[in-house]
């Protein structure tokens, strides 16, 4: 315990000294998020410095092995780091599908060569990754994917199409599910392969969304050559790895509703727009009740996130949490934005112009509708809980 307290003191001191003041402000827009990558433009010097300093300690990926650029922290130490960062409202230094999704799979199943090639760059935020999973005909039925990879000796020749590929137009590399076999069960012919998005034959087209933004792409592959050395794990075993990555993705998406206690104080934040009665209560009793119920549910969710981490640490890891948290966290985030838009009235529905931050809230509200679709729909998560946790059949 003493060691952990020492670690806390050291961490606190280091963060005090090294986290720039502007990196302790709430994230206000997309440009406040540091994604890293070859073409990333830092919003300011503080953002670059914060990434560099955190990556220097391996704290962009706190629990990964030090030899691959991680921090080598125990789960207990990582929790202390999270708590100390939260204490000063420090921003995440790097948001990375490399850290949250493909990295853990490379660590678990990748060859030593792959680990050395990719993991340090992920930790330093040098390469931005995207996820090639869904296809026009393979959404919830992901295992039905048809993107074809033909064995050409030292490489695969890839042809097909992905869709809903988040940030494919900004990504440097893709971790991609391809079909390498048409025999047997559909789950048994899938391979997980990595390749550079600048490879000839790769084309990413952003899709315009209801929020007006274009974070998702259609991604086309025409005779794309992918080196066989970039296969993660074994050929035709990709489904196992894909599910593992989805588990990590779910955890990341569910954290949308879980991070930043700043978003939790919805009631107090609504006082300005809604007004207060003489006793200081929100001046719309029904909205106040809705917000109170949301805040209570949100608190229960956040405590469950913590409990899941505590149980994992105590070796009681129960695999059911990722589907449960993904479902609960995304539904809560949708509810939050419905309530926020309601509280802000017409201002919450403004789209352009100087007033009301140029429609930022309306766009965030619409964006949130994808939370319960991407990474496996709420219905898919409920099915996973029912079958895998509750044993219903």
């Amino acid at each position, binding site marked *: 315990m003493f060691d952990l307290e020492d670690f806390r003191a050291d961490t606190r001191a280091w963060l005090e000294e090294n986290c720039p003041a502007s990196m302790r402000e709430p994230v206000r827009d997309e440009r406040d998020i540091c994604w890293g990558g070859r073409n990333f433009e830092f919003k300011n010097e503080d953002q670059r410095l914060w990434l560099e300093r955190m990556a220097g300690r391996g704290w962009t990926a706190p629990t990964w092995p030090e030899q691959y650029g991680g921090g080598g922290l125990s789960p207990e130490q990582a929790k202390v780091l999270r708590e100390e960062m939260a204490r000063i409202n420090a921003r995440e230094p790097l948001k990375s599908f490399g850290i949250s999704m493909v990295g853990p799979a490379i660590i678990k199943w990748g060859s030593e060569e792959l680990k050395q090639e990719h993991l340090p760059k992920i930790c330093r935020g040098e390469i931005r990754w995207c996820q090639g999973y869904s296809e026009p005909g393979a959404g919830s039925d992901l295992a039905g994917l048809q993107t074809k990879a033909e064995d050409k000796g030292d490489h695969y020749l890839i042809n097909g199409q992905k869709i809903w590929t988040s940030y494919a137009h900004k990504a440097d590399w893709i971790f991609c599910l391809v079909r390498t076999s048409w025999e047997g069960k559909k789950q048994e012919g899938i391979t997980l392969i990595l390749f550079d998005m600048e490879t000839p034959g790769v084309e990413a087209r952003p899709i315009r969304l209801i929020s007006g933004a274009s974070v998702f792409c259609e991604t086309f592959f025409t005779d794309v050559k992918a080196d066989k050395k970039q296969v993660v794990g074994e050929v035709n075993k990709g489904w196992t790895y894909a599910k593992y990555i989805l588990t990590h993705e779910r955890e990341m998406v569910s954290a949308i509703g879980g991070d930043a206690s700043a978003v939790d104080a919805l009631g107090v934040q609504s006082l300005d727009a809604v007004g207060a009665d003489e006793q200081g209560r929100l001046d719309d009793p029904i909205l106040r009740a809705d917000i109170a119920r949301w805040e209570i549910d949100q608190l229960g969710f956040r405590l*469950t996130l913590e409990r899941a981490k505590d149980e994992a640490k105590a070796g009681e890891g129960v695999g059911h949490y990722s589907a449960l948290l993904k479902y609960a966290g995304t539904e809560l985030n949708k509810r939050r934005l419905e309530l926020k838009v309601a509280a802000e009235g017409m201002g919450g529905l403004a789209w352009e112009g100087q007033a009301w931050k140029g429609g930022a809230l309306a766009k965030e509200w619409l964006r949130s509708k994808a939370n319960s679709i991407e990474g496996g729909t709420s219905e898919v998560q409920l099915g996973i809980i029912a079958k895998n946790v509750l044993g219903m059949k």
Partner: protein
Amino acid sequence: MATLVLDDEQKMLREAALRFMAEKAPVSQLRALRDGDGAPYDAATWAAMAEMGFPGALIPEEHGGAGFGHVAMGQIMEAGGRTLAASPLFATGVAGASAVMLAGSDAQKADLLPKIAAGELLCALAVDESVRHTGKAPATAAAPSGDGWTLTGAKTNVADGAIAGLIVVSAVTPEGATGLFLVEAGASGLEVETVEMADSRATAILRFESTPAAALGEVGQGGEALGRLLDICNAHLAAELIGVAGKACEDTLAYVQERKQFGVTIASFQAIQHRAAHLFGEIEQARSLALAALSGLDEGVEGLPRLISAAKAKAAAVADLATNEGVQLHGGVGMTDAFDIGLFMKRARPAAQLFGDERFHANRFATLSGY
């Protein structure tokens, strides 16, 4: 933030409590009490609970208790919720013991706590004066009389009020302060009306007419103690409600796995799977809140009353959901007395109402949150 996993001692106690309740205080015992000669609880089971240390779980060792703490007591309450154990444990071991520990003088603690821990002295807590818990100051009046007090007024919703040897009563003093007072069963001017509730447990309406009473500790500090006391009660009612909801969910899952229609189990239908999975998730999140509230009572945490209101509100909502879904997914047999699910529904509501239902606590949560 406190850790949200049980330590080894708490785990052992949880296992022991689950085993004890399943063996010694099963749902069939509640049915037997309901259909029997009117005994409000099973005396042999209560004696066995005392031997296990349950009534003294919150009481320190120096006063004859086991000093297990709130997280541990919460595990016992949850275990009791799972079997609908109809025992004096809540009113005596949680409400009575906590009242004396919070407000009692040293002499009162030394006198009363060992008897409570031993299961010899049953208690009741009389706070409410209307059918819904309001959180308002009491109207029941306390007047000085000799070296003691007398009480005049009426209380309702008093769990175990008809069987308790010692009743803790909130009342207003001539100075307008809220005080806690002790009234002994059979005191002069005390009229007890028993009300049989939907959950087959008895609550009481108590009427006081110049009834002799003793102040519990310093009268002037009663209001503060009462606030903390109600928080403790609500955290443990939340734990019980988690037990009620959890077992209602498990019984329902077992039923849908067995019931066949169209040649397959109804658990194979997606409509049923999604409702069950949603319910399971809600219960797990309510459990996290209850655990945080209990560990907050043990270790102290900022904003504890707000956390406890969140825990009670969510536990009450989840127990409603679990029992409503439970009856629906049982179909026709869910409406029959032969199946237990209806008994869980009938316990969920009074346990939620006692000291504030979901709405009361959501409202309190909002106020304490500053909106």
